[in-house]
């Protein structure tokens, strides 16, 4: 049973436009969420996180939105740049548990 779902395997966006990456979860016990970026043959790097007590967190070009009632979060990248092309993973965890559960990832391609 996949508790964190990234249903779209890929997304292609024009440079300068907005990229919206979506993530759904089923476990209502998750109380924080993270986004990671991964290049081929490298480990994932942390991008941005959000606590369940918030509905928005912003860091530069990256904004994460959380809709707890819908069990949905999204990562917005504005403006998108070619260097943003990578696989993006959504992850979730609980304060009482030391595990992070990841989705399958979304491959973002930003066209110049």
């Amino acid at each position, binding site marked *: 049973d996949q508790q964190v779902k990234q249903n779209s395997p890929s997304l292609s966006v024009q440079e300068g436009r907005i990229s919206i990456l979506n993530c759904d979860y089923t476990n209502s016990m998750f109380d924080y969420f993270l986004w990671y970026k991964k290049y081929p*043959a490298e*480990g*994932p790097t942390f991008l941005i996180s959000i606590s369940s007590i918030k509905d928005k967190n912003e860091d530069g070009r990256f904004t994460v939105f959380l809709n707890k009632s819908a069990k949905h979060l999204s990562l917005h990248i504005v403006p998108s740049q070619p260097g943003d092309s990578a696989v993006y*993973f959504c992850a979730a965890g609980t304060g009482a548990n030391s595990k992070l559960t990841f989705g399958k990832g979304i491959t973002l391609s930003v066209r110049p």
Partner: protein
Amino acid sequence: SQTIHQWPATLVQPVGSPLSLECTVEGTSNPNLYWYRQAAGRGLQLLFYSVGIGQISSEVPQNLSASRPQDRQFILSSKKLLLSDSGFYLCAWRSFYGPRNTEAFFGQGTRLTVV
């Protein structure tokens, strides 16, 4: 600052051979340590995690085992590799202390190909 080292970067092993992947963390004490595997189309799957020396939790039944002989050392092993063990293995650490206590920090990964 904290760093995580994982080696080797790539490995080609025959079926039935043993495996040992090592991960070490510097600059932190008593981290939580994790082994993940990225298989094609399956995202990041948690294999093992450890909250302390000698404490290992297994997430999925498999042909692999993990050990934590020292506070900042985490080892992934197998006695006999299977073809299905091929994948990209990632070690990660996490601390529950400090302002960034929800993040996990990953090593560069090991590409294992079992032939």
